[in-house]
């Protein structure tokens, strides 16, 4: 199973990244190297192994009282926005 340049461009689109042809070519090679290395996991029979999803094996979430607390302020939330008016983040028009 080997990754093609088209695979790389397909995944880049899913990840919302643009790659030049040269970058896609380089990433294709890197990915095939890395995935080739990763293939060694197939030496292991894991048929009866449960996947490990949380290393400290938390079985139940910690609950807290359902109380309203002060969130970050409106001004703070907008502080780092690249484009905003006094109330909202500003984005390109979505609906034509």
């Amino acid at each position, binding site marked *: 199973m080997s990754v093609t340049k088209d695979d790389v461009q397909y995944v880049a689109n899913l990840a919302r*990244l643009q790659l030049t042809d040269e970058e896609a070519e380089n990433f294709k090679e890197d*990915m095939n190297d890395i995935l080739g290395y990763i293939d060694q996991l*197939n030496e292991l029979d894991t048929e009866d192994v*449960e996947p*490990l999803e949380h*290393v400290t094996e938390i079985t139940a979430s910690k609950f807290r009282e359902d109380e309203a607390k002060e969130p970050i302020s409106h001004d703070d939330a907008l502080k*780092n926005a*690249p484009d905003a008016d006094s109330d909202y983040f500003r*984005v*390109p028009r979505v609906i034509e």
Partner: protein
Amino acid sequence: MKNLLSVQEQLQSGKRKVTDICEEYLQTIKETNSEVNAFVSVDDEDVRKQATNIQQKIDAGTAGKLAGMVIGVKDVICEKGKKVTCASHILHNFESVYDATVIKKLKNEDAILIGRTNMDEFAMGSSTENTIYGPSKNPANSDFVVGGSSGGSAAAVAANMCDTSLGSDTGGSIRQPASYCGVVGLKPTYSRVSRYGLVAYASSFDCIGPFSKNVTDAAILLEHLAGDDPMDNSSSAKPVENYSEAVAESSGKLKIGVPKEYFGEGLDDEIRQGIEDRLKELEKDGAELVPVTLPHMKYGIATYYILATAEASSNLARYDGIRYGHRADFEKIEEELSLERKELKKAAGTSTALEAADIDSPLIRLYKKSRTEGFGTEVKRRIILGTYVLSAGYYDAYYGKAQKVRRLIKQDFLDAFQQVDVIVSPTAPTTAFKLGENQDDPLQMYLNDVYTISANLAGICGISVPAGTHSNGLPYGVQFMGNTFHEVDILRAAKQFESLQS
């Protein structure tokens, strides 16, 4: 050895002042940072203000437990009002609006936060070369890297620009640079320290931990970093032990596991010899060396680079140029899109074909351009790999498989810790490599983490302590790993190891 306890004695007796300590460190930074590039920002005036304030508290007898400790902070941990860039262009203008829990705790105990340290972009790397600030350079020899990703924090302590520093360890990012720079670096058990305010890379691995010049300071600092936090639901509710007291006591007869998998092929001969010699001294000192086996160790890197990149691809989806961070120039995007439409029209001939053609909406293109301009190559590589292993048709073969192998790796450690208190290994297979040496070979770069990565996969704790100087003049470390929440054991082993040298 100079540690916080001896500094605090001098502060108490009035022999020294925090303000003077800070001036000395600011002066060292001024003299050496242009060479080492450990700090990416230091606000002298802010540091002086902190120092004056804390000196007043010392004089009034109301100072906190970390008064006198001067700490550098990796640029991935949020400090209110400070730039938090993760050494990435995409956050080059981001200023945190809140304090990470660890920062709040340090401030409450009157530590001085002296500045922000260099790192690999979003903590992805093993050399502190993937950074918009330029690489940090090893204080022992500036032709060599400092390790990574918390390389700036390691170098800052090694070059005496601060007492201690904070780093984050996802696959070895505290312990490996500690080894390369000749300082102490500790990765706590996963969930022991709150991750609130730590910019996420791979959330099931990420841990904040300390760098220091000696084991005692690491214990003291960890004691104040650790603990339950309502802001991080994954943080452990287990009570925090008194680490500083524990290291002050004699460690008794430690059972130290020696895994053959960690002393095999790929390890520098001189490092192997150096560590084996030291272990014999520990044995004479009363420790018992027990051969153990961790048979799945060799699958660690493969497992990690599936799981961590998968988590990264999800975590880094938040950088879209909308709410914060870099946003691409929208006028240029509109021009670009209109040009693409025109060309498609010319090629397609009909407007129906044009409508069917796949062309980004302006908003989608804005996301793409902002991310493409904002992220560096290694970050893109990992996002793409992570997206690939999670994509339809590959999920079970990669992500599902890796989660199963992760359990096997953890089980190896659980079995080994039935027999021993701690497990010893080299921290890294070599001393620091030359700047630029591994830049073109990502897989080779990943292999630097071979001895550290399993601890992250298993969620256990580990510490790197300086073990000696190689004939090439560069330092190297030894790692002690302990079972989950057994920080006391690794600190005691490290302390005993440290006392061999003095």
